[in-house]
């Protein structure tokens, strides 16, 4: 296929198509609303391409299988929602410390616990950064359209391969289930990144050697024999409790993200040059926030939108730049104030207008405007 394909699909399907475009050849998952369409589409498409689809016995097994497959060289992914995402936390940390590339899609739904399986929420934003125990790197991307469900998934794979770390896609039930037009690029239009491999065969003595602030360059299983463990380890891959080595390697796996963060950062900014009322939102809440900005601008109010597409690492430099100009910073989100806790670190809380909804309904422009006006 050398031409673009025009399709009209759900966000979840777009996500699956993005994975395939990026070269995903392995999917292991467990059914959970509202993410199941990702798995179902891949169960149909992967066998056609000689890839592997397996429905595992639970979410923990799903991510385990994904990491195992990734170590053989496969681009591997799983998809889930809140309850499954919670189960996966331990192994997310495993992929972080072992530096294994993989993509985890979380189509957020009402929580906590079983919550509202078929309703949207944005309640896993902080969990995507802090969910797993220990100090670890986090990359999380938040699409807000069907098109972004495609392109951000491609980007997720590219980032995972380059940075040798798990990358999380935070969709939500609205973005996952809504239908929009998608123009699937022709092969070669978007650059696909493949993990760098060392030049070794036989035994790889230092699979986790990295220059200071860079990702390790592990071989694939079968290319070169080496040891992978979730214990703190040194450059050889074998466990160590030497304090100086542990300190250094713990720092490196986080620093590798920040050191080249310009490759990860992505923000959409609208009407922010002269902004006085800054709306900060992600995902489907940002779709409503867009409307609010347009509405205020029509009335002559200098509203603007700051939309992190990469949520983690949080774009604090760019955020500060615009937030400092604004008199008020409005944070609409479908949770009890998770993005707000991040924003609060950079500006006085007196400037913040939180707009929170956790009733399972989509956050809409009227509600945001109502809340803003109530706070005057």
């Amino acid at each position, binding site marked *: 296929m050398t031409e673009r394909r025009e399709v009209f699909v759900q966000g979840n399907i777009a996500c699956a198509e993005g994975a395939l475009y990026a070269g995903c050849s392995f999917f292991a998952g467990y059914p959970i609303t509202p993410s199941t369409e990702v798995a179902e589409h891949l169960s149909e498409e992967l066998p056609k391409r*000689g890839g592997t689809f397996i429905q595992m016995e639970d979410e*923990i097994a799903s991510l385990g299988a994904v990491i*195992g497959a990734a170590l053989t060289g496969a681009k*591997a992914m799983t998809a889930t929602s809140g309850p499954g995402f919670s189960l996966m936390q331990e192994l997310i940390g495993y992929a972080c410390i072992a530096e294994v590339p993989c993509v985890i899609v979380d189509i957020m739904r009402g929580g906590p616990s079983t919550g509202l399986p078929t309703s949207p929420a944005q309640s896993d934003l902080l969990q995507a950064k802090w969910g797993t125990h220990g100090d670890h790197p986090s990359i999380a991307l938040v699409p807000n359209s069907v098109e972004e469900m495609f392109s951000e998934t491609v980007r997720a794979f590219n980032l995972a391969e380059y940075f040798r770390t798990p990358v999380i896609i935070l969709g939500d039930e609205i973005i996952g289930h809504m239908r929009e037009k998608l123009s699937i690029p022709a092969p070669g239009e978007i650059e696909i990144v493949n993990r760098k491999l060392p030049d070794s065969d036989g035994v790889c003595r230092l699979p986790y050697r990295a220059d200071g602030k860079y990702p390790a360059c592990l071989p694939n299983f079968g290319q070169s024999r080496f040891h992978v463990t979730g214990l703190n380890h040194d450059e050889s891959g074998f466990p160590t409790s030497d304090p100086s080595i542990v300190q250094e390697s713990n720092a490196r796996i986080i620093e590798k993200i920040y050191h080249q963060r310009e490759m990860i950062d992505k923000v959409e900014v609208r009407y922010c040059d002269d902004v006085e009322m800054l709306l900060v939102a992600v995902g489907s809440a940002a779709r409503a926030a867009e409307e609010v900005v347009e509405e205020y601008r029509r009335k002559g109010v200098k509203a603007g939108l700051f939309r992190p597409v990469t949520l983690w690492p949080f774009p604090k430099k760019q955020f500060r730049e615009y937030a400092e100009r604004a008199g008020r910073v409005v944070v609409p989100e479908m949770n009890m104030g998770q993005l707000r806790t991040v924003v609060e670190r950079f500006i006085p809380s007196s400037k913040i207008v939180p707009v929170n909804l956790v009733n399972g309904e989509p956050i809409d422009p009227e509600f945001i405007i109502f809340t803003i006006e109530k706070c005057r």
Partner: protein
Amino acid sequence: MFDYSVYLRNEKLPHIWCAGCGHGIVLKSLIRAIAKTGWDKNDIVLVSGIGCASRLPGYVDFNTLHTAHGRAIAFATGVKLAKPSFHVIVVAGDGDALAIGGNHLIHACRRNIDITLIVFNNGIYGMTGGQYSPTTPLGDKAATAPYGHIEPLFDVAELAKGCGATFVARGTSYHVPQLDEYIYKALIHKGFSVVDVIEACWTTHGRKQKEKYKDNLEMLKWQRDNAVPFAKAQTMSAEELKGKFITGILHQAERPEYVEQYQRLVADVKGGNP
């Protein structure tokens, strides 16, 4: 003289296991069995969970994967499916494989995926100090059973067989020549194979059963005196078998193997015959 060093990361010896621990005995048996298969070291992936037994992969010169507690089989499933040409072996303790890892065990049995699992069954969580596990003998004292253990234990072989494993054997760290045979046959069997190896942990377990064992050697003698070969067991009454355990190749069957089934599906789909 058999050269173990070909299969070892020699610079990592001596291993961390206690004096008298059976894990080293089983490791050597595994190495001899692998040598007999003639497999290339680059094609072998050895996966483990967490615990004393799960430290094994660090000592052997294959593609080695030390995962999270209970999850070895899940990782191994991903490895095998992504690259079916690999020979995938899982080593895990009884707690790792049967408690936290139980779910993954039963599904691997059901799928009959071509992976070999060796359970280092010493009936205790050794690494963490001797807490009771799903195979700790009834009545034994343990770190979390100071008054004696009240839970009945799993029969690993029956569990594996009941869930669909197509090769099930039980050996011990005492009956080593037989163990070599069971492990070798498990490795070359096409399907999910389980070898339950009865072992003993003196350090965290035997030591607390003062009336049963004086030292680690007596734990091995217990294996010697209470193991009943399968054929002999068929001739014994339930009363005679009380307190004993059965060893040998306990179950072997032919059933479609998972990876093969998946490859067949892919071939059909690609060939236009879904």
